[in-house]
């Protein structure tokens, strides 16, 4: 079963606009990560936020985490055509060997229109 549920499944915006994607999860986590996947390629790690953090920034990316609502959001500001990709959240939880696993959401397909 998927830990993360992402919303929306697809998002299409104009270049220069901001894009917001959301991820909800079901159980307590140690951290939540966001990955990007360009068409036909492997996933690329973007940013990690720990369960005791509420917000994190990396360049044009801003991630928030609300553990009380079990949700996270990824904001991409001033979008560019190169941001067109699928974005996945992934959660890591627990301890021991089981904690070495990530559980991925189904992803949001983002299209940036020129």
């Amino acid at each position, binding site marked *: 079963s998927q830990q993360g549920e992402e919303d929306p499944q697809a998002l299409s915006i104009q270049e220069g606009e901001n894009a917001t994607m959301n991820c909800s999860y079901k159980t307590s986590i*140690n951290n939540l990560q966001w990955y990007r996947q360009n068409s036909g390629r*492997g*996933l690329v790690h973007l940013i*990690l936020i720990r369960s005791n953090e509420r917000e994190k920034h990396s360049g044009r990316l801003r991630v928030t985490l609300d553990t009380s609502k079990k949700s996270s959001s990824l904001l991409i500001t001033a979008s560019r055509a190169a941001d067109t990709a699928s974005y*996945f959240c992934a959660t*890591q939880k627990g301890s021991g060997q089981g904690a*070495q696993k*990530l*559980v*991925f959401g189904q992803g949001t397909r983002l299209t940036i229109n020129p």
Partner: protein
Amino acid sequence: DAGITQSPRHKVTETGTPVTLRCHQTENHRYMYWYRQDPGHGLRLIHYSYGVKDTDKGEVSDGYSVSRSKTEDFLLTLESATSSQTSVYFCAIRPDRAYEQYFGPGTRLTVT
């Protein structure tokens, strides 16, 4: 792709035949993972390894086996391929003291 390669990149095989996919890393990381990606399901973990000869099952391990005889290689075997195993398979590695994973380019497998 962070010193991680997968072979073959594309394969078409017939139902009932055995198939082995290879993941090779040059980073000397202990943790390695096999995922499959299907439309509507995101990435699902098949098996993972936390050292040479140390492996464990993931969410969708039925019909798959793995082996890791060397740090750099993690093999995924479909003993008798079925059409439901048509998918894109990704390998990933993770540094010991980090949480993020680094993915290979993927193998597109078609079972006819």
